């Protein structure tokens, strides 16, 4: 009862704010895959005022990992004596000719872990194996990967490496907002990425693009209040970054975690699936940490692969195509037999639409 009253209050605030837009149609983007899943699971879109549209963005790290990188990870799984440790979401993402799941079925040693620390502990306990951690993730995950590598170095664990393929969110938002195909009136910024990088980082979005931002949590009321803030900012003719997730997000973020990332990782140009190469948008190991680079240790070259035929994940990730508008959604591409990553990941917008979209 009390929780529902919180949602009622937030919803009323969104409706009031949307009504002040004098019928103007607005399109917002939720940048974070965890938001995508919460919104779909809670059925929130059915509650939105008719002039408010919300599209999903490139906020699922698995989904934005290009196929060539998946192919490199499959190649790592084929290294004799290797044990690949990965977050579960990566397992079923199809590469050009295989997936980690298929490699496992063919006998490769692939372990699903919850933390990179588990992978390091496995390496310490099994010195005869080459343990490779697949380091996919955004800023939320980067400090965990970096700190685990610091521990590996301190403990001189020689059989532990990481395949770092992490991504940095703000440059992708800059690229997205600079894209002529993309027209957005506001951004619901990712809550847990912001815990690390801070809310201030998004200041360039209102300043350069005049687009309001709201950093919000993941409960129904928090998401609705985030959207209400975006409508209120537009109605008042202002654009700022409003932090509505203050219990966890500081303006400057977690400085200690930032320092750990900075010691181990640097940002370099990186390819995002469907978007292309974005300057300084990906993590890679600093030169002093090259000994821990799995790709380098096992001689896995860079790979590039075309998107699967018919798959429109790239457009879905930019919010310019909705999952149902993709010709293979729900027919050739399903969670059981995914073609693109947006259907595989538990945070992918196609998976959310398939699971909760009323099919």
């Amino acid at each position: 009862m009390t929780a529902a009253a919180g949602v009622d209050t937030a919803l009323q605030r969104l409706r009031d704010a949307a009504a002040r837009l004098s019928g103007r149609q607005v399109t917002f983007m939720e940048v974070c895959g965890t938001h995508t899943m919460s919104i779909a699971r809670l059925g929130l879109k059915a509650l939105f005022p008719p002039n408010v549209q919300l599209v999903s963005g490139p906020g699922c790290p698995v989904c934005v990992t290009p196929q060539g990188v998946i192919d490199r990870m499959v190649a790592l799984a084929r290294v004799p004596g290797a044990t690949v440790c990965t977050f579960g979401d990566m397992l079923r993402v199809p590469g050009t000719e295989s997936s980690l799941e298929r490699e496992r079925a063919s006998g490769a040693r692939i372990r699903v872990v919850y933390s990179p620390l588990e992978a390091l502990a496995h390496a310490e306990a099994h010195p005869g194996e080459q343990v490779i951690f697949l380091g996919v993730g955004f800023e939320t995950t980067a400090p965990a990967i970096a700190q685990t590598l610091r521990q590996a170095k301190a403990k001189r664990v020689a059989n532990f490496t990481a395949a770092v393929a992490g991504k940095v969110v703000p440059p992708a938002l800059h690229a997205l907002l600079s894209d002529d195909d993309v027209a957005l009136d506001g951004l619901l910024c990712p809550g847990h990425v912001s815990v690390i990088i801070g809310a201030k980082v998004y200041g360039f979005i209102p300043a350069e693009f005049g687009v309001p931002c709201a950093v919000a949590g993941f409960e129904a009321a928090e998401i609705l209040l985030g959207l209400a803030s975006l409508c209120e900012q537009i109605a008042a003719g202002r654009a700022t970054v409003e932090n509505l997730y203050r219990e966890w997000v500081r303006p400057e973020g977690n400085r200690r975690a930032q320092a750990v990332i900075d010691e181990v990782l640097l940002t370099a140009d990186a390819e995002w699936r469907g978007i292309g190469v974005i300057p300084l948008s990906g993590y890679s190991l600093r030169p002093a940490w090259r000994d821990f680079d799995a790709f380098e240790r096992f001689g896995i070259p860079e790979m590039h692969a075309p998107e699967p035929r018919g798959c429109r994940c790239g457009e879905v990730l930019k919010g310019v195509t909705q999952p149902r508008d993709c010709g293979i959604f729900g027919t050739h591409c399903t969670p059981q037999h995914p073609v693109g990553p947006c259907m595989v990941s538990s945070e992918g917008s196609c998976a959310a639409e398939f699971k909760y979209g009323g099919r």
Partner: protein
Amino acid sequence: MCLAIPARVLSVEDEVATVDLEGTRLHVNLSLVEGVAPGDHVLIHAGFALEVLSDADAQELAFYRERMRALGAQESMS
């Protein structure tokens, strides 16, 4: 993948906290945060605490949330 979950700290030993996550006890690495004490809340992701909310701040927040909800309930009844 950026899912992070808050949990209450039961005890702290060196850089590891034992937390209570809805009845389950978990070990969480504290090396990315500072000054964690039993009773605090931590936001957990991939085995690490990413941020801390002190016991006092958590209680204050719960108070204001409850107040907001109560106000909402009054409004919806009137």
